[in-house]
């Protein structure tokens, strides 16, 4: 008797976007290996952009063709469903936009290996060297982002997590100016990231021990039959939670975010603040809703506290920040909290869950876009020594660069969730979903969800203060004598800002199309 090994089936068409990105990344590595230095950039940039745009096109094609796989693909490793495709689309757009920022001059160190201020750094800079490795690294990161939320079992998810994180650890360390900060950020991010992923992995092990499988479908089945209160399961679940909450930067796992966001090169910060967050939330949803959905009566109260804490911590600490990037980091913590409110808003009915999912997806899109736009503007406000990130330098910017400041102010208002900006509808959708779910669940829980929303609005009110503070600084204060110079933006950056602005305004006035999109994506829920 000879055992027959059947070949694994891979749905290449469905996975095309993912494969394209990874393929391009590998190609990029080859370019680094073989192409002469002066040619590399001219290879890398088009390659990266085209691959991302191509991948996006492929996603669109799938959406248009509309024949989504009904089950997991790649031998159950990945689940390409409505939400995944939406998240992929968002990630690809955002990352493509971020690549445009990365492409901009003077963000990245000439030679990472050389000691700051040393002679050979001088030389490298004079020679105009650049680390074109950033492009393949970015592509790998993006690939990881695509993989992370699409994972259909804990293993794939872990791999995705690492593929996403490792390049980012490096990218954080490659800033041209303020290299000490950059390297420190990189190290902190790395150590803490690895630390948290260890937790994630141990959690995975525990869950595996409970369910005997790492696939979400299997896990939820096992929970459907087995005891829900098995300590093994609970321990595993909480450790998984640690890993994921760390990635979205929820309190009390938010500590890395400010430091890393501040230290990293701004384009990378933009990528992390938009892409990583989107991916992480997607993954969070898979674990909490798909994998451990049946456990929601246990994790809801815990997550309630986490969400409330995250919103408050982010909003409150941001008030006294003096560095614009750091402030945006805290704001992104607060927004992660808002997203958790959406994660909490689970219903008993698919239709209900679709509402929450739609809200979350919508929020991810609008928040990501606004964030990228905001960071793009941050890259333009420069001192001789690099970006002028200290808030005091922004005083009176409205006088010197009215349009730029105006746009930035608009993004801030979007973060604050003022009506007629995209951010408002994002918040509105989330809060509606939350209150709705509470309403459906009945009195006590209803009160709790409403309470969470109230916490949310209080947090938004506090958050509004520091957004407004920046506006006050830019418009109501007189400019300093030696104010920062406004770099002449490259076409890339202009494109980024314009795009983000158009989306933020457009969605702010006519959110319906995007809502519809998110709705169609959401209503075909997660497949198991």
């Amino acid at each position, binding site marked *: 008797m000879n055992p027959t090994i059947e070949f694994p089936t891979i749905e290449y068409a469905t996975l095309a976007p993912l494969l394209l990105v990874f393929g391009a990344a590998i190609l990029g590595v080859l370019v680094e290996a073989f192409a002469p230095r002066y040619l590399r950039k001219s290879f890398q940039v088009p390659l990266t952009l085209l691959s991302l745009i191509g991948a996006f096109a492929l996603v669109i094609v799938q959406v248009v063709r509309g024949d989504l796989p009904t089950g997991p693909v790649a031998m159950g490793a990945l689940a390409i469903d409505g939400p995944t495709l939406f998240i992929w689309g968002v990630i690809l757009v955002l990352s493509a936009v971020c690549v445009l920022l990365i492409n901009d001059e003077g963000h990245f160190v000439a030679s990472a290996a050389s000691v700051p201020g040393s002679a050979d750094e001088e030389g490298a800079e004079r020679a105009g060297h650049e680390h074109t490795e950033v492009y393949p690294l970015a592509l790998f990161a993006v690939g990881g982002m695509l993989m992370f939320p699409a994972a259909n079992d804990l293993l794939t998810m872990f791999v995705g997590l690492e593929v996403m994180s490792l390049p980012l650890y490096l990218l954080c360390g490659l800033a041209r100016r303020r290299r000490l900060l950059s390297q420190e950020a990189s190290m902190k991010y790395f*150590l803490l990231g690895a630390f948290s992923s260890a937790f994630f992995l141990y959690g995975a092990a525990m869950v595996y021990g409970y369910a005997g499988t790492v696939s979400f479908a299997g896990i939820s089945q096992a929970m459907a039959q087995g005891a829900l209160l098995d300590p093994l399961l609970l321990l595993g679940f909480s450790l998984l939670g640690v890993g994921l909450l760390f990635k979205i930067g929820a309190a009390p796992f938010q500590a890395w975010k400010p430091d890393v966001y501040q230290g990293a090169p701004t384009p990378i910060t933009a990528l992390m603040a938009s892409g990583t967050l989107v991916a992480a939330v997607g993954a969070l949803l898979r674990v909490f809703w798909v994998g451990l959905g049946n456990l929601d009566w246990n994790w809801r109260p815990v997550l309630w506290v986490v969400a409330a804490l995250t919103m408050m911590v982010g909003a409150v600490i941001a008030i006294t920040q003096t560095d614009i990037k750091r402030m945006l980091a805290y704001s992104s913590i607060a927004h992660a909290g808002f997203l958790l409110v959406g994660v909490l808003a689970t219903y008993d009915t698919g239709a209900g869950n679709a509402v929450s999912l739609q809200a979350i997806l919508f929020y991810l899109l609008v928040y990501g876009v606004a964030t990228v736009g905001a960071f793009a503007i941050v890259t333009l406000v420069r001192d001789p020594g690099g970006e002028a990130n200290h808030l005091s330098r922004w005083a009176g910017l409205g006088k010197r660069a009215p349009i730029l400041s105006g746009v930035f102010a608009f993004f801030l208002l979007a973060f604050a969730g003022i009506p007629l900006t995209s951010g408002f509808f994002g918040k509105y959708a989330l809060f509606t979903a939350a209150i709705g779910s509470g309403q459906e669940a009945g009195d006590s829980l209803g009160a709790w969800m409403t309470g969470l929303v109230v916490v949310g609005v209080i947090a938004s009110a506090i958050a509004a203060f520091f957004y407004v503070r920046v506006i006050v600084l830019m418009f109501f204060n007189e400019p300093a004598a030696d104010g920062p110079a406004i770099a002449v933006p490259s076409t890339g950056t202009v494109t980024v800002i314009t795009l983000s602005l158009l989306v933020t305004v457009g969605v702010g006035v006519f959110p319906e199309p995007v809502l519809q999109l998110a709705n169609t994506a959401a209503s075909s829920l997660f497949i198991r």
Partner: protein
Amino acid sequence: MTTNYLILSGLLFSIGAVGVLIRRNAIVVFMCIELMLNACNLAFVTFARQVGNLEGQIVAFFVMVVAAAEVVVGLAIIVTIFRTRRSASVDDANLLKY
């Protein structure tokens, strides 16, 4: 029978975690993290044995690969920072705070 292995992995994991907290040298810290990962591996294979399927084993293999990759990245970072600061102490790097 498998419980002992589980206890051991738990022990290893805890040692690793504590090590991360108490050791200053970045390299050592990093090694502790590796220890934690290996604790996970042990847990996986143990459970694989317990539940009697291969998934756990497979996971272990993947984890090793990932850990290797992590080593590459981590050492690179730590080395650069050592070159600039002439110190591999985790605590020396705290310009970014508050």
